[in-house]
C-alpha cells in the first residue's frame, strides 16, 4: 500500500482542476455537438462495411474477368488446334484432287489414242 505526500496531493489537485477547466473550455468550443464524435465513429464503421461490400462486389467482377480471360486462352488454343487440323485436311484434299485430275487426264489421253 502506498501513501501520497501532501505535496503530491496538492500538485494532483492543481492538475485535476486544470484538466477540468480544459474540459470545460473544449465543451464550450464543441457546444451542443458534444456527442457527435461517437456518432462519427459509428458512421465511419458503417462506411467501412459499405466499402468492404462494394469492394467485394468489385472483386467478384474482377474474378469473373479473370475467369473469362482463362476461357479466352482456351478458345484461342482450340482455334489454333482446329485451324491446324483444317489446313491438314485441306492439304490432303488438294492432294487427292490433284491425283484424281491427273488420273482423269491420263485416262482421257489413253482413250484418245
Amino acid at each position, binding site marked *: 500500500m502506498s501513501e501520497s505526500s501532501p505535496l503530491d496531493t496538492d500538485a494532483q489537485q492543481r492538475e485535476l482542476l486544470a484538466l477540468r477547466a480544459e474540459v470545460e473550455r473544449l465543451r464550450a468550443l464543441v457546444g451542443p455537438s458534444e456527442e457527435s464524435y461517437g456518432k462519427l465513429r459509428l458512421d465511419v464503421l458503417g462506411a467501412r462495411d459499405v466499402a468492404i461490400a462494394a469492394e*467485394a462486389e468489385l*472483386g467478384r467482377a474482377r*474474378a469473373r474477368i*479473370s*475467369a473469362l*480471360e482463362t476461357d479466352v486462352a*482456351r478458345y484461342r*488454343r482450340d482455334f489454333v*488446334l482446329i485451324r*491446324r487440323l483444317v489446313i491438314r485436311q485441306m492439304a490432303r484434299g488438294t492432294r487427292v484432287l490433284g491425283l484424281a485430275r491427273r488420273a482423269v487426264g491420263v485416262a482421257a489421253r489413253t482413250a484418245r489414242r
Partner: protein
Amino acid sequence: MSPRFSIVTPVFDPPPDVLRQTIDSVREQTFGDWELLLIDDRSTDPRVRGVLEESRASDPRIRVVLRADNGGIVSASNDGLSAATGEWIVLLDHDDLLARRALASVARAIDGDPTIDYLYSDEDQLSPQGDHINAFYKPDWSPERLRSQNYCCHLSVMRTELVDAVGGFHDGFDGSQDYDLILRVTERARRIHHIPEVLYHWRQLPTSTASDIGVKPYAIEAGRRAIQAHCDRIGLDATVESKEPPGTYRVRRHLTDPPLVSVIIPTRGSSGRVWGVERCFIVEAVRSLLERGTYENLEFVVVADTSTSQPVVEALRRVAGDRLRLVWFDRPFNFSEKINLGRIHASGELLLLLNDDVELVTPDAIETMVGLALDADVGSVGAKLLFSDGTLQHAGHVYNGDPSHIFFKGSSEDHGPFSMLTLERECIGVTAAALMIRPEVFDAVGGFSTVFDNNFNDVDFALKLQEAGYRTVWTPFAVLYHFESVSRDPSVSGDEYALMHQRWAHRLASDPYSNVNLEPKRHDWVERGGR
C-alpha cells in the same frame, strides 16, 4: 510364365455394348503381356454372360470368374485379386476404357525404376456422346492431397505382392474401396510414380460417380472412413470431415498441447487506407490475431526499422502487451535479413512469418497451420490469402517457367479444377507473407537468402526446402486478407530475376505439382493444346 499385368474388372450388369467396349480396349493394347480377369458378380442381365463367354472364347488371355452369389464390389474385386497371376494389378471398371498405350506406358515406367510399387496416370471422362472431356492432369505424388481427395483414382497400377501384403480390398468401404486400397498401398509403397498421360477414360453414366459423386452418398461416407482409418494407421491424431464439393475431405488435426508460435513480422510501421479507412498495418495485423484469432500461445517478434514512429510502437505495445519482442533494424531494407533477424530472437517451437499488411479472417487459422507444420516431413505451410476485394492473392505457388501464384486474382469462392482450391495439398512453394515453419527446418536450409532482398526470397526458400526433401503444404482453411503492395514497392528488379533463374533454372521448369500437359507460364491450369 505369368503375365506382367493382371487387369481386374468386377462386372455387375453393365450395358452389354459398354462392357464389350471395355474388353476391346484391353485387347487393343499395344503391350501384349497381360491377363484380363472378368469377375461376374451374378449379373441379372443374361446378355452380360453372353459377352463374357464370347470374350473368353476369343482370347486366351481373358479369364472369366463366375461368382456363386452377388457379394458386392469388394468381394468381386477380391476374387479377382485371388485369381490374378500377374506381377502387377491393374484396376479397370466394367464400363471404362483403357487408352491403347496404357500398359505400354506403365511398363516403360516400371522398367525405368525397379523400386516403384504404385503408379497412377492422368485420366479423362467419356461423355454419353462419346466425347473425351474433363481431362484431369494430376500432380506428382501428393500425400496431403490424397488425404483430401482420391486424386490418384484411375489408372491405378499396384505391385501384386504389396496388394497381398495389405490384405486386398477391405469390407465396409463399398463405393470407395479403391480409395481405401490406394491409401493402404501408398502407406507402404517404396516409390510412387505418376505418369502424366491420359491412360484411362472414365465413362459418364447416370449411375456412375464420373458424372456426379452425389449419386452415391454412401461412397462419400466410405471415403471419409477410409481416410480416418488411414490417419489412425499412420498415427495422425485427427478427425476427418466431408466437405463441399462432395468427394473432398478435411483432415482436422488435434492439438493436445499447442506449442508457442513466434509470429515474425518485419515492419516499418507504415499506414494506408483499406476499405476507406486509414490503418497502421502492423498494429491491425497483431490486433486481428489477438482479438479474432483463437490461438493463444503466441509471441510477436516485430522486426521494425529504426525509423518506425513512436506512436506506432506505443500502440503496438498496448495491443500486444508482454507478448511483444521488439527488434530494431537499422540497415537498408532487406526482407530476408529482417526475417533471419526475427528468427534469432524467436523462442517459439514454430515460426509464423507474417507480412504486416495482413488481417486474420478465419479465427482458427493458426491452429490449422500448426497442425500441418508439426508433421515431420512438412517444411512449410502456407495460407489462403485474399486481396481486400476478396479475390485470390495466394493459393500456393506454381513454378512452370516463371514463379506465380496459382489462380492469382481469381475468385476466392471457386473450387478450381478438380476442387484444387478447396483442398489441403502440396505445392512447390508458398508465399512468405504467411508461412509457418519449424525453427530447425528454417535453420537447416540456412534461413532466407539475403541476396534476394525484396523479391523471390520465398521462391528461393521454397526450392531450398524442396531440395532438402521437405513437403510444402497449402491450406484453404487458414484465411487472411493480404493488402499486398499497399505497404511496399511491388516492382521486381532485373538482377533478382536473373539471379533466381541462374540459381534455380532446373527447378523452375519442372513443378511436380503442375503437369506437363498444362500451358507453361500460366497459373490458371489451361490445358496445353496442339501437340
